[in-house]
């Protein structure tokens, strides 16, 4: 208090008058735009919004309807394998099954093959953080200090590469698509690279620097659930193995929901499949490795095309249509009320 009291006297010495400035800011007279909701702006905003949303919505629905998609659930069809996998002692034994399906019409354009998982909570908090981005960048880091625990090292101290629960639980089914054309079986050519984000493949994931991959990963071990070490993920392609393996990268991009799909392969548009997948009978040859029964999950294979507005999900269009309708309706309601009240003249109205 004592201090405060001193200020005025100091001020007094410097400025004789304490009259406040008569400036627009200090007197709160800044020029301002005062939006007012009058009937014209309100109605025009409602109707314009409504019209716009309805138009966009219809377009979106139409475009979403043009998406062709087929989804095959193979968790039941491969029940044998599923049971086989429940016994964890069979972890390194192979189990194959095939699933047939029929395309009633052609799927034209780029066809994407996804695997879908149901009830797999990749977004579980402790699961989500169980990774080491530094390790995936190819840096030599002490993963003990990362969030990978308990999937960091084996008991003997060998570090896992890659570490963490996400990597450990990587989806490892292999799915091949065969086209049964006139009793001959043609394997559909599938692209396994170029499915992940460019930035992921080229920036976010790097293999450790070394003259060859196996030496780069020397001194590390595969995660416990894996059947082969990380540098053998794609034995055929140097640029698609190790951490930069597309399947691995895609798996490491943790999906948002428990039911999700990840891009697995793209149909290579050559020969019979230059326009997409022709109608007919197809078979998925699946090497069943990924157990889902213990969390009551399901697995799918999805073949789908995409359009500019995304996938087959028509919701965005529906949402637009609904919003547009709501806005239009609101506009009508307000018009009605306005017309009714204008007769009464009981409210103040701008002339």
């Amino acid at each position: 208090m004592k201090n405060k009291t001193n200020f005025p006297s100091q001020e007094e010495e410097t400025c004789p008058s304490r009259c406040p400035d008569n400036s627009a800011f200090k007197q709160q007279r800044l020029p301002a735009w005062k939006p007012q909701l009058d009937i014209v702006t309100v109605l025009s905003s409602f109707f314009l919004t409504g019209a716009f949303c309805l138009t966009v919505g219809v377009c979106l629905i139409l475009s979403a309807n043009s998406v062709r998609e087929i989804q095959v659930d193979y968790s039941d069809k491969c029940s044998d394998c599923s049971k086989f996998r429940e016994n964890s002692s069979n972890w390194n034994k192979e189990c194959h099954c095939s699933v047939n399906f029929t395309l009633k019409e052609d799927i034209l354009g780029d066809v994407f093959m996804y695997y879908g998982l149901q009830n797999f909570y990749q977004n579980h908090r402790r699961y989500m953080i169980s990774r080491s981005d530094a390790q995936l960048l190819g840096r030599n880091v002490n993963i003990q200090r990362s969030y990978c625990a308990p999937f960091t090292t084996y008991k003997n101290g060998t570090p896992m590469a890659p570490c963490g629960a996400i990597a450990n639980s990587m989806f490892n089914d292999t799915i091949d698509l065969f086209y049964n054309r006139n009793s001959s079986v043609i394997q559909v050519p599938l692209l396994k690279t170029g499915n992940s984000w460019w930035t992921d493949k080229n920036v976010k994931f790097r293999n450790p620097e070394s003259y060859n991959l196996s030496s780069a990963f020397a001194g590390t071990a595969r995660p416990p659930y894996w059947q082969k070490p990380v540098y053998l993920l794609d034995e055929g392609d140097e640029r698609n193995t190790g951490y930069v393996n597309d399947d691995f990268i895609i798996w490491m991009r943790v999906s948002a929901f428990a039911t999700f799909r990840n891009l697995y392969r793209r149909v290579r548009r050559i020969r019979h499949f230059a326009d997409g997948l022709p109608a007919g009978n197809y078979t998925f040859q699946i090497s069943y490795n990924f157990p889902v029964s213990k969390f009551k999950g399901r697995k799918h294979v999805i073949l789908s095309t995409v359009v500019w507005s995304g996938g087959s999900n028509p919701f965005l269009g529906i949402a637009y249509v609904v919003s547009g309708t709501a806005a239009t309706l609101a506009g009508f309601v307000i018009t009605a009320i306005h017309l009714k009240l204008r007769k009464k003249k009981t409210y103040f109205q701008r002339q």
Partner: protein
Amino acid sequence: MAFSVDSAWYRWQRLGAPSQAPSEPTPLLPPGRDNPKLSLNKWRVVFPGSGRQWKDWKQASTFYSGNGIQTTKYTWFTFVPQNLFEQFHRLGNLCFFFLVVLSWFPQVEIFCRGVTLLPLVVVLLPSMIKDAVEDYRKHQYDKTINSSKTRVYDKEERAYVERCWKDVRVGDFVQLQCNETIPADILLLHSSDQSGICHLETANLDGETNLKQRRVVRGLPGQNALFEPEFFQSTITCEMPNNNLNKFQGYMEQPNDERVGFNIESLLLRGCTIRNTEVAVGIVIYAGHETKAMLNNNGPRYKRSRIERRMNVDIFLCVGLLFVMCLIGAVGHGIWTGTFSEHPPYDVPDEYGNFLSPALAGFYTFLTMIILLQTLIPISLYVSIELVKLGQVFLIHNDIDLYDEAADLPIQCRALNITEDLGQIQYIFSDKTGTLTENKMVFRRCTVDGIEFSHQENAKRLETHKELDLDDEDFTKLQPLTLPPPTVGRAGGAQQSPPGALRRCQSARARVQGHARSRSLGRRDSSQSQVAFSSTIEKDVTPDSRLLRRVREAALQTESLSPFIPTRTSTAFADFFLALAICNTVLVSTATEPRQRVTIPPPIKPPGITLEKIHQIFQRLKLASLSQSFSSSQSSSELGASFGARGPEEPLPALGSGDSSDRGDSGDRHDSSDRGDSGDSGDRRDSGDSTDMGPASLEEMLQSVSSSSLPPALCYEAESPDEAALVHAAQAYSFSLVSRTPERVTVRLPQGTLLTFDILHTLGFDSVRKRMSVVVRHPLTKEIVVYTKGADSVIMDLLEDSDGESFPCVLAEKRMKRIKEKTQKHLDLYARDGLRTLCIAKKVLNEDDFQKWANFRREAEAAIENREELLMETAQHLETKLTLLGATGIEDRLQDGVPDTIVALREAGIQIWVLTGDKQETAVNIAYSCKLLDQRDTVFTINTENKETCESLLDLTLEEVRKSYEWDKPRRKIFGIIPTAPEAPEAPGTEFGLVIDGKTLSLIFQGGLQEKFVALARRCRSVLCCRSTPLQKGMVVRLLRGQLRAMTLAIGDGANDVSMIQAADVGIGISGQEGMQAVMASDFAITRFKHLKKLLLVHGHWCYSRLAKMVIYFFYKNVSYVNLLFWYQFFCGFSGSTMIDYWQMIFFNLFFTSVPPILFGVLDKDVSAETLLGLPELYRNGQNSEIYNLSTFIITMLDAFYQSLICFFVPYLVYKDSDIDVFSFGNPINTISLLTILLHQALEMKTWTLSQLVAMMCSLGFYLVFSLIYNAVCLLCNPPSNPYWILERQLSEPTFYLLCLLTPPAALLPRFFISALRGTFGASLILKAQQIDKLPKGQRDLEMQKLRSRKATSGASPAPNDDLDQSIGHLCVSPFLHPAAAAVSQGHTEGQGLSSSAVSPLRRGTPEEGYCFYNRWAEEESAATDSSAGPFAPSRGTAPGQGSGQVPKDRDPRSSSGSHRRSVSAVTL
């Protein structure tokens, strides 16, 4: 600690000097002096730091605290920990600290540990910086204070040497010079003043600018000799340091074991300034932090505004919500985990491979969720609110409309955190004097000896003044021109002098007062004029020509030996004005050098023969008055001649001189005219009488007086403005007070003679006695005269029944009676005109009586116990059997714009109460004149001293009021289609006013009648509490606050309003005439009452609506954002995952969405200032908390839930079953919700200034830029989560844009729809006002008029929160509900019977007249009982007698006038 040190020292000292038996009982000694154990803790012993006891001193002074002060809270090292510690006292901060700690446990950790610290840091850091800066400033200030210089006696050098303040020690001798600031609490031992007086200005302590007197310790030997610290050997024992500024006790033990007591009268307090005293020497008693000033230094008080209280409730609601959400998460997670028979691969075990049990997992989830959803509690809200309030205070402070040019003072906002309370006021409690009125007392009328002098010209002058007030810039130019002819007489004197001088002086003073808080370290400009209570209006008194003639005639008649009655009159006149001049505590200083007070009595008493002559005249006068005999003598004729001589020379001589004496520079002229006069009379005397000293000597004397010690124009400094007004009035009639010391007072008589009275005693004013007296010895007659001045009610009772014991003349007795009656009539008249009345009386004592009384008095003064009562008793003993001289009417003019302001505030739905210590009549009249009461109002007056009566009166009145409400109700139902507004419309014209006095109030408080009183009072348009004590004022405010939970504002200007100002939610001080105490206690300080209008209606409304909207927006913002995370929990097994990167989340609240609402909180204007002032009705919006209350909070919460649902589920459904990853999913959600939140803000914003637009754009831009950079750069910034390249990628997808286009409008659709409907359908007044705002100016006024008139016809009422019917239902169970029931009550108690009988006249009266006026005149009772008597006791006996005579008798003279419709039916009981 100081206690123990002191007591230890005392013990030590006693051991050292065991022979310390009290040699003489001093009254000031404590009773427990013989018992050392008792007194040990009470006393501090100070040894002088010189001479013999130097050793003692040296040891002692190390124990007492030094004079260096340190007001800083922190040191360099303790700053961080201590500041943190203090900040964690805030619940919010502590809570967040807890969260930070929580997040360090790996089980519940969500984010990188450091990240959680950020919000806390952002909140703590600004406060920390603020504290540091403040503390540093304090440190700098301390340094300057500590190193300022003072002169301390040095033992070695045997002289006073300059030393820093901080080096002053207890026991040091300090020499102070004029205008020096006192460095410590010092016991005054010597003053250069002959009478041992030292003048003190305490403005730094309490803001009072009038000087206080301190005197050297009485009974100190060698007073007049030069003070030699060397020989001062006494030991001083005094109180322990305490903060009581008005109490100090102790004694001084001299080497010869003699004890001398002293009290506060001798203590110079640190921080005060020495004035008018050349040199003062004292010994330091308390130093540094132990000084009274420092002990009184409390920090600024912290108030919590209503919104903040509301907010805290809502924060608790949010905490509840958070708890529920976390619980849902915990339970959900537990159940979810429990459903697995086997652990799925995504259920990650802990480090050691162990899995959590569902219950434990649930518990951890609970904690995790707390961290995750912590933003639900808006921590940033505290910081934002503080920023917003700073901005608001800045804008209020800079409002040019609240700037007072005359005082050069803008509004002072002393409390920074209750700006928005200004917009919610429901009750205003106002002081009357100085708040509604100017507190510039103007002498208006007087009655002397039963003859009334109306002072018409004075009234005219005041009118002129008012006009001049309007444009005082041109005052100097206009004044000579605009003065109407009646005041032409002054022109001669006034024109020569620059009339602006005084105005300048006044404004300079006001400025100084505004600065009074400033501590001037002796550098205050001594030339600054600081004249308390003298404004131009007060000083100019145009004498009534009739009275002037009377005075002259009186003198002539004395001369012409006329019969005794006129002679007596003449004495009465002279005495009257003498009393006006003497009977006060006014101090005199001069205008040219105001601080040089005239304390030196005129160097020579009127010398020689001249004196003799005057003596004779007075003796004769006295003889004439006492014995009605007269003697003719030459000298008396000469006196008359001197009176007469003045007459012919000037038509209105006194008028001229009275004026000129006030005009600073014209003083010379005045003096010369005086000299002329006195010279004149001197000549005459010379011619008539043989003289030892000729006229020359007299002239010489006067000349010397005028040239040296008696400066030309006198300034009076009074403790109350009434006194100043009276002194000025006396001066106008040439009885001017020339100087005053505690012992003597000098008055210049019309003849120019100086008369010096010895003051034998001054009995100061107190509120119980309501009067003050001076006992003087007349210098000529040597009589002892008591002049008493006081409230009429008191003085009238103390008057002597018969005139003079020596002359029991029937005629005289009759005459006295007549005078008394006449005066009473005049007094009533004055009161009706709203004048403050004072009666002047005198009493002549004979020597013996006085000696007897003086002895009593001395004993009383020396008493230890019951001292106050004894003093009171002695005072009352003296003030009896007075002779009435006359009475004065002083006007306290209404301030500019008061009625207008009151009307506007009332229209705004604010109930205004006036709490005043003033007389009922005066208060009522002021209330009418400031439109607080309307002529058509029904006014209930409750004055009683009996509890039962009071209770039944309250019941009765309540019933009456209730009835009128009942009448209104059906009307409302028939005509009103829907009772839209919450306020109950009252029929216009049936509004009620309540007048209640202090006694009744205390009855109400003691008798537990508060509820009834409140129930009644809240229905009254206005309530006047008269004769209320400061304490009662505070109690009333507290009562209303407590019972109605209403927002109260108290406004006042004086020390008596402090308790009220402190009790109210908002205290407003008026920096006016009565010092700074009110201002010091207040939250806002304004200079005029009219500023209240803009302060409340405009700033209050703005601040409220801004802050309320901002707070509610913050809640909305946080809830809608945090809910996004919560919804996600349903899709991630309640595991506590987030889909938004934490940095983006934190930045969202801290940066992306924080600036627009803050700017909104500072700048938004929902309605323009002009419209707000034009439509005070708009204020109700804040009063009823329409913007921020539980329902709006809930609605907003629901809206937030809805919006978050839209913002979450639209993207969810869009991305469902796709290959979207977590952060890619979170990114559009984050963007959408940012857009929604900003758009929401845009919808709320009513005024778009450039800054707001820019802020809005910047927020969005910053978000995009930050996110883009962050997403592009950060590969490993925030390890587990990695939003690399997400925004970039999404910006290339049409879905993202489509989402951003759709979702925000969809989320805001309902809100927009509702607000559109509100604008079209049931448009609120605010909306109408906004529409009006858009109109061009002329049309706007027209529309406002229309709206207002409609309001008026529909019947606006000031019942802000109306649950009337309910409360009235249980309150009115009195037997007076129905006339029939009332008739039954016969065997009731007196009180009830009394009231029931009062019902019947009322019943008759009301339908016919529609107005009634209950008046319980308690005078009969009060006459019988003393004021000290209990409230219950007296009326027991009297009531039956009164009850039997229940005649409705019109006691109020107003009703008979019939000119207005204020009809009254009073019930006399």
